[in-house]
Structures are given as structure tokens and as C-alpha cells.
């Protein structure tokens, strides 16, 4: 019980600290550079100065946290990627040269591109579909919760769930995986799904799509609900049918959110490793970069240099998305 009170107290304290920082800093700024001094020139100068400083007050805690928890480790990884196994002796670009010659790396990056092609597209599309459809029916909230369920299940649980989907027993034995049960029921031969090179990628992807559709649905559903009713009513009056309204009116309005969901899932794909680790550990040619990195980092004491080099490659892959986001942000600014 004591722990509950401590926790509650700390929560309140933490929130109070954060609020008082934002409020207090803002208050001080207003005091130091008042907008109403009686002198119009001074006023204008103060307002200008304050508007230069204020964004950084708002951003301060975020930048601090990001700097410590993410930027610093990236910097550390960059440093490690030029060093040997235990991170002490400088080896130049040896890790990168090794990487690009490694067949395991080539296999992983090929699979990663497959994942990048399929998973974000499939999850976003299915999420959009789920959001649009469930918004129109009375039991939509229930349906949403059920589609969201995979997102909420712990990873260990998800791995067992899919074991009972993909499990393989030979033809004469009773199947315990539902996919093979369906296949044999339809008269086909059971397959060891996760052991079929190349195709197993898609069976693993199905798991991530299954999970991420719930994510896409929640975000897109919130966006769809933000569309002003008036625009839809106007389209209905013009005689547009449901599908036309959806594609011509609604989708363009939430285009920005679709892009955000797509980006987020793309990044999730780049980082995905627990699905692969638990289902195949990259065997049967199903490895991906994040799992390869994990493998080099932690298996048998690990090789931090090579692990870090793979991490740098993963981070480099996100560059196109970053550039695209910069352009988007610039465009928004012009519109202001």
C-alpha cells in the first residue's frame, strides 16, 4: 500500500514539476520582456525577443530528454561502429567493410526491403478500411476494440498465438495449427509455413500487419472524425455515393495523417526484431536487420562494433523519410 501512495505522490509531484516549469518559465519570460512597457519601440522589441526565446522554453524538456536518451546513444553507437569487439580498439571502417561483404547482411537487407514494401502499405490500408467501416455502424466501438486487441496483447502472448496458427504436423497427424488444419480440410498438403524460404517472410509479416492494423485504425479513426461534417453533407447533397465520398472527400482531407501512420509503421518495420527472433530467429532465410543487430550485440558476449555498424545502417535507411518530412514541414510553413 505504501508503494501506491509513494507512486501517487511521485506522479503528482512529477506532473506538478513539469507544469510549473512550463508555466513558471513562461511567466518569467513575460516579466523580463514585458509586452506593455509604455514605449512602443521597446514593446515591439520585447515581443520580438520573447518570440525568439519562447519556442525553446516549450521545447526545452523534450530536447533535453531526446538528447540524453536517444541522441547520446546514437553518438555512442557511431563511435562504437568504428571500434572492435569490446569497443576499445579503433578499427576504422573494418566493421562496415565486413558488413557489406557478409551474406547474412545481404539476406537481411533484402528481406527488410520486402517488409518495407508490404507491411506499411498493408497495415495502413487495412487500418483505414477498418476505421472507415467501423465508423458507420452501431457496434463500431466493439469491432474496433476487437481489431485493436492484437496491439494490446503482450509479445510473449502473440508468439504463442501464432504458433497455434503456423504449427506444422505431418500429413497423418492431427494438426494443431489452424492454417494447416484448414489446408488439409480443403484437401491440400500441410506445409511448414515458417520454414519455407522467401515465403516465410510473408507469414512473419502477417503477424506485424495483424498487430499494426490496430494502431493505424486508432490514429486514422481519430483523423476521420476530425473531418467537418459540413463537407460530407455537401457531398451527399451533390449525390455522391459512399465510396466516392470516402476516396474523393475524406481521404484527401486526412492525407497528412495517412502519411504519419505510414511513416511510423515504416519505422516500426525497420526496428522489428522480436517477431523474427521468437518465430524463426532469422533461420530459413528470414533474417532482418534489427534481428541481425541484436544477434551481434548480445549473442555470446556480443561484438559491439559490428552490432553498432548494423544499427547505423538501420538509421541511415530512415534518411529518405526524414528528407521527405523536412519538405513537408517547409511546405506547411509557407502556408502560414
Amino acid at each position, binding site marked *: 500500500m505504501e*508503494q*501506491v501512495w509513494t507512486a501517487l505522490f511521485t506522479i503528482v509531484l*512529477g*506532473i506538478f514539476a513539469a507544469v510549473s516549469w512550463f508555466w513558471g518559465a513562461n511567466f518569467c519570460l*513575460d516579466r523580463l520582456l514585458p509586452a506593455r512597457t509604455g514605449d512602443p519601440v521597446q514593446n515591439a522589441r520585447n515581443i520580438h525577443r520573447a*518570440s*525568439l526565446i*519562447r519556442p525553446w522554453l516549450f*521545447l526545452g*524538456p*523534450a*530536447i533535453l*530528454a*531526446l538528447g540524453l*536518451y536517444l541522441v547520446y546513444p546514437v553518438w*555512442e553507437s557511431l563511435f562504437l561502429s568504428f571500434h572492435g569487439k569490446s569497443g576499445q580498439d579503433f578499427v576504422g571502417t573494418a566493421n562496415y567493410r565486413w558488413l557489406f561483404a557478409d551474406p547474412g547482411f545481404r539476406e537481411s537487407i533484402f528481406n527488410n526491403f520486402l517488409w518495407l514494401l508490404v507491411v506499411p502499405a498493408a497495415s495502413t490500408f487495412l487500418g483505414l478500411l*477498418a476505421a472507415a*467501416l*467501423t465508423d458507420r455502424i452501431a457496434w*463500431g466501438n466493439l*469491432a*474496433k*476494440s*476487437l481489431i485493436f*486487441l492484437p*496491439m*494490446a*496483447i*503482450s509479445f510473449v*502472448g502473440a508468439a*504463442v*498465438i501464432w504458433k*497455434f*496458427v503456423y504449427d506444422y504436423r505431418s500429413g497423418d497427424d*492431427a494438426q*494443431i*495449427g489452424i492454417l494447416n488444419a484448414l489446408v488439409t480440410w480443403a484437401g491440400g498438403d500441410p506445409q511448414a509455413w515458417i520454414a519455407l524460404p522467401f515465403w516465410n517472410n510473408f507469414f512473419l509479416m502477417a503477424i506485424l500487419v*495483424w498487430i499494426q492494423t490496430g494502431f493505424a485504425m*486508432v*490514429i486514422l479513426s*481519430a483523423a476521420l*472524425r*476530425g473531418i*467537418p*461534417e459540413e463537407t460530407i453533407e455537401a457531398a451527399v447533397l451533390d449525390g455522391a455515393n*459512399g465510396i466516392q465520398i470516402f476516396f474523393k472527400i475524406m481521404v484527401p482531407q486526412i492525407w*497528412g495523417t495517412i502519411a504519419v501512420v505510414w511513416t*511510423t509503421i515504416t519505422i516500426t518495420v525497420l*526496428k522489428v526484431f522480436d517477431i523474427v527472433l521468437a518465430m524463426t530467429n532469422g533461420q530459413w532465410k528470414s533474417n532482418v536487420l534489427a534481428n541481425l*543487430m*541484436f544477434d551481434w550485440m*548480445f549473442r555470446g558476449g556480443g561484438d*559491439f562494433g559490428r552490432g553498432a555498424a548494423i544499427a547505423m545502417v538501420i*538509421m541511415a535507411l*530512415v534518411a529518405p*523519410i*526524414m528528407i521527405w518530412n*523536412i519538405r513537408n*514541414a*517547409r511546405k506547411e510553413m509557407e502556408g502560414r
Partner: protein
Amino acid sequence: MANNPYRWAVHLSVVLFVLLWTLPTFGLFVTSFRDKDQIAVSGWWTALGSATRNDMFRAPEGEGEVEEAGRFTLTGSVFAGASGHVKAFGISSKAPDAFAAGEVADLGDGESLSVAEDGSFTLSGPESFKDKRGQRIFFTATTPPSFTLDNYRAVLFAEGLGRSFLNSATVAIPSTVIPILIAAFAAYALSWMQFPGRALLIAAIVGLLVVPLQMSLIPLLRIYNAAGQALGFDPKSYIGIWLAHTGFGLPLAIYLLRNYMVGLPKEIMESARVDGATDFQIFTRIVLPLSFPALASFAIFQFLWTWNDLLVALVFLGPQDDKLVLTGRLVNLLGSRGGDWEILAASAFVSIAVPILVFFALQKYLVRGLLAGSVK
């Protein structure tokens, strides 16, 4: 109206969608109520109806035998408490269905065995069955669906579960609230304030989304240890893990919230500015309330992630008994080699309860109309 078939199509597709999405989970749900030895032998769907299965029962070693006129008789049921219909039985693993129910099998040495359709067996012989290995009775039977609560009992009454539940809540709640607060301010600055370097900062945040967690653990723990040593506090504390979850969750929080805030109508801000409101006032009085759907949806995800997380908790809080989080406790219920499917299945549903409650609680904020009314 042509609305009707269209409505039906919508309903039907949602039903299909939901079925497809819940079927795998439903399988685990059924599994969580099944007997541990059946799980790896037959599909979970077979548990829903009566199933024909082959099984083996070992007769007790003379316990309860009756002696009558020099013959010892041992009776009982092969179903041991459950019910079913025996079709055939056997006395050797080579021919487990050699005899039809009701027939008498000769075991040699004057011993005989018969199994009736209702599962009751009669074993008789000239000598006592004591101190002999119990006779194996193989049988083929149709059994009605049977479910057990044992798996849940094993999980729910595990030692220290309540404690771990509290630990998880202590980790997850602040780890959800703190990043939202920090991210909301940052997102506002990135979407509605003008300053140099804004686009670059946004791109940097997108870039930070991809930083693999595993890379951060060692450098961060090293800092924690160094700071703990210098300032004399325990490096593995709740505050440490809250801040860690905050750091790891921030990029997504800022990214999602900024995207939402940027879409808020410009007119509101401008009219507020004309009225003399400062940025701080605009943020707290207009933007924050309007962003509730986005805040709620991020809160759901961050809560899920922190609740289900094991790795960050183990690294920054430790695996000690008094600090172990729920996921850790449940995983430790499995043996050293893992893979007790029945425990895995039951614990998955025990741990999912809280996130689902959070989802239901916050779902009502993901509503239409918050904006619609305020545009004018």
C-alpha cells in the same frame, strides 16, 4: 434508397474483418482453458465439440480391490472423474483398439479386463494386484468438451503476482503521463511557433524514431550507474525507468501530436492572438483541449508499450523480486526452458485485462465533434 444493400455490405465486411482478426487470439483464449497435455496433441478447435481421442489409463496398484472366492477384482473408471463414451479398448500399445467396448480381454495368467461403454472397467485375476505395476488400459473414446480453470489458477495465485501488478502500474502510469505533457508543449512549438531550425528539428525527431532501443541500453545504464555513484542514489529506481520510458516514447509522441495540432484550424489561433492571448494561453486554453483525441490515442499506445515491456524494466529496474514487473513475473512462471503453452496462454489474458480497460476508458475521447463545434 439504395442504402440497404450497401449497409449490409458494410456490416458483413466488418464481421469478416473482426473474425479474421480475432480468430488467432480466440484460439489462444480456448487454449488457456484446455488441459495442458491436450494442447500439443490436438488443435484448439477440437476442444469446442466432442472429440474422439485415444488415451491411456493406468489402473491403480491394487488400491480398492475386492477379493471374492479366490479372485481379486478391481473396478473404476478410465475417465477418472470426467465422462465420455468408450468405443474400443486395448491392453497393448501395439493394438490400442483391439477390443470393442463391453468385450472381455484376456491378459494371460487367468487375468481378464473389460471396459464398458461408460468407461467403467473391471480387472480381475487370481492374484492380488498389489505390488504389481498398474495395468495400462488403452481406449478410444468420444469425450464431451472439457475445460479447466487450472491454468488461470496457476497464474492468478502465483506468489508475488499482486506485488508485480502494483509495480507494473507504478511503472506504466507516470511513464505515460510525463511524455504526453512534455510532448504536447514541444508539439505545439513545432506546429504553431515560428523559429529558425524548425523543419530540421522535426526531421531529427523522425530520425530519432528509428533509434534501436537495444543500442541505448548500455550507454544509458552506464550514465545511471555513474550518476548513482556520484550522488549516492540507487541507479535502478522508478524515477530512472520513468525517465527512460519518457525518452524512448517522446519521438512518437511529438510526431503524432504535432501532426494533429498542425491540422487545427488556423482561424482559431489567429482570432485568439487578435484578442491578445499569449502562446501559453492559446496552448493551454485552446490547443490542449482540442487535441484530446490525439492525446488519448497516444496515451493508449504508450501505456500498452510500457505495460507490456520487459526489457527496459529488467535493465532499469532489475529482476529482483520486489521490483519485478508483471510481464517478468509471468515469464518467470514458465520453467527455465519456457514453453509451457498453458501458462503462456493464461498469463497472456491476465496481463491483457488492464490495457483493454485503458482502451475502453480512453476510447470515448476519440470522438467526432470536438472540432466541429469550434470551427465557427
